[in-house]
């Protein structure tokens, strides 16, 4: 039963991740990220319930508050302050991105070593899904030009890692998880500030214009 629920949630997590590469609108990135975080919180709660780890409930609640609550608000504010002409520039379009993401996902399933240890919930821990999400996050960072989209890529990577932590080790010690979430929050605030500064300085947050430093 739990196994089926977790598999379903894993699929939903993947779906939300694919939404980030499929979208053209800035809002789309943020919505997809919220979706991803909500699913992640659900996974934490279910694993916590199945294994009787109370810590994971706290992790789930924190994830909801920070990643589905505070961070999207900040991202929207940053996005609103920045001039965006006609959607979000991409080096490769959504269709090609989806194909690439599928390939990355295949690579993840193929390359992730089976590190299953007896006593885990699923015989084959969904580590490959986490690795795949991390790779898709990297893809976003390297192919999207808008700073907010790159930021969502970074957060996607982090979500992938979080899901991995929950999948293989039922999460890290609570204080560490707490610190990491706090850190991510601060990171988003700080990077948001920097993005705004850049926006004011060059009146465009297209990072492909940041190419003066070479050699």
């Amino acid at each position, binding site marked *: 039963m739990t196994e089926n629920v977790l598999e379903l949630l894993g699929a939903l997590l993947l779906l939300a991740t694919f939404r980030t590469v499929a979208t053209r609108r800035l809002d789309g990135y943020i919505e997809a990220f919220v979706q991803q975080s909500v699913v992640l919180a659900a996974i934490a709660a279910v694993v916590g319930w199945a294994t009787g*780890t109370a810590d994971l409930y706290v992790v789930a609640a924190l994830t909801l508050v920070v990643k589905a609550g505070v961070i999207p608000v900040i991202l929207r504010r940053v996005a609103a302050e920045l001039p965006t002409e006609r959607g979000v520039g991409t080096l490769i379009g959504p269709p090609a991105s989806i194909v690439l993401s599928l390939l990355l996902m295949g690579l993840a399933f193929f390359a992730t*070593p089976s*590190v299953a*240890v007896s006593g885990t919930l699923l015989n084959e821990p969904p580590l490959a899904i986490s690795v795949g999400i*991390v790779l898709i*996050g*990297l893809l976003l*960072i390297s192919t999207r030009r808008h*700073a907010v989209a*790159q930021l969502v890529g*970074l957060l996607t*990577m*982090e979500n992938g*890692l979080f899901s*991995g*932590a929950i999948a*293989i*080790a*039922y999460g*890290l*010690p609570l*204080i*560490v998880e707490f*610190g*990491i979430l706090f*850190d991510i929050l*601060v*990171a988003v605030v*700080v*990077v948001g*500030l*920097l993005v705004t*500064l*850049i926006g004011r*300085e*060059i009146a465009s947050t297209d*990072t492909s214009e*940041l*190419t*003066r*430093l070479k*050699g």
Partner: protein
Amino acid sequence: MTLALAIALCGAAVSMVARRRLVEAVAILVPLVQLALMVGLASQVLRGGTVREVDGWLAADSLSVIVALLTTGIAAAAAIHSVGYLREDMRGRDIDQGPGLRDLRRYYLLFHLFVFTMLVVPLSNSLGVVWIAIEGTTLTSLFLVSYYRTREALEAAWKYVIIGSVGIALALFGTILAYYAAVPVLGLSFDLNWSSLAGVANRLDAGVMRLAFLFILVGYGTKAGLAPMHTWLPDAHSEAPSPISALLSGVLLNAALYAVLRFYSLAVPSVGTVELNGLMMAFGLLSIVVAALFILRQADYKRLLAYSSIEHMGLVSVALAFGGPLGITAAMLQLINHALAKSLMFFSAGHVLLRYETKEIDQVSGTLRALPVSGAFLLVGGLALAGAPPFGLFVSETAALAAGFRAGWGPAALVVLAALVVIFIAFVGHLSRMAFGRPPTDVALGEPLRIGFAPLIATGLGLLMLGLVIPGPLQQLIDGAAKVLGAGS
């Protein structure tokens, strides 16, 4: 340890509200007190082994103490340099009130926080906290890198935060894997402390630890400036104000490398040295070669120093990979010497930049005449950095090469030797062009910053001393660190 971390935060609080003179005084005082505390900690470690505080959240052994001493020492020198540098840099602006004072306070606030996060790295016991602190170093130094708010500085800061965060994310994965490897041994609820992991390191699953170390090496290696993840480094180091460049090169890279070394020490008992050293060797050699190529055709002297940092981080990795007591000792010495030499270079290069107002090597000439003291330090420091005797780097580099040949890494050692020769020639060429000749007519003569002599002399003397003799206590600390890193096992 607790006190040293606490006063950094107090210093940060004071810098937000105090008058200018008090802000400057606190900026210098705090790292000096921290340095004194770390010397005390070092003697404690030498007497009784690993020291723990605050319920085991903080812990220090020989390896941590070496890094912590360097952190606070270089921070103290950089603070003194900052006071002079900023006064000169902001001449013509009112720095006692209004926006000038606000900029100054912001600088010192971030300075304290930056040093705080870098000091947490070696002193923290929990590997999770180490991760948080290293991410913290990116966030606190980000606005120091973009301090000048020029287009180039903002570009450097953006690159720094994005590449750094990707690296950090990979390191988080490595940390999670290490936790996962330990769960079967220590149970689900242990707190990820290296001091508890070290005791059971030989019982961890080798496959998982190998994967964990690979992610850690690539992740923290990004922050440590190892090629090919080094691309943020030359930009950030050259665009930041010079005292911050010194901190980035002399302290931040060490902090990141410390995290790699800590995981190395935890992975060696299960995975064995052969594979781990192979990885360190690959990244180290690539860094040295890439750095050598860029140093050869560099036109900007701050970027020149930045690439030299990549080279030296590579050298530390390679020396460690050569292995054996000699190799590991050479690696630790190299770490210390590089921190001293590089901060010395960025301090004197900062004086040159203030006077000449250009970073182009071609447009700087006659620094010996225009700036008799800083110019001389720039030239001599450059020779030391390139590995000339009688300075510390000559000793550590020859030791590393000897370790390499002895351990049967002949071809690799030859590559390193060739790169060192190339870098030496390029460095002497670049620096003599800057030092000799006539200064341009529009450049004023004479030293503007007497207060900035102190850090130059301090780091210079340290470098000279380490070239002639290694003091007993330091030798003991290095031996201790070598034991932590698996020498003799």
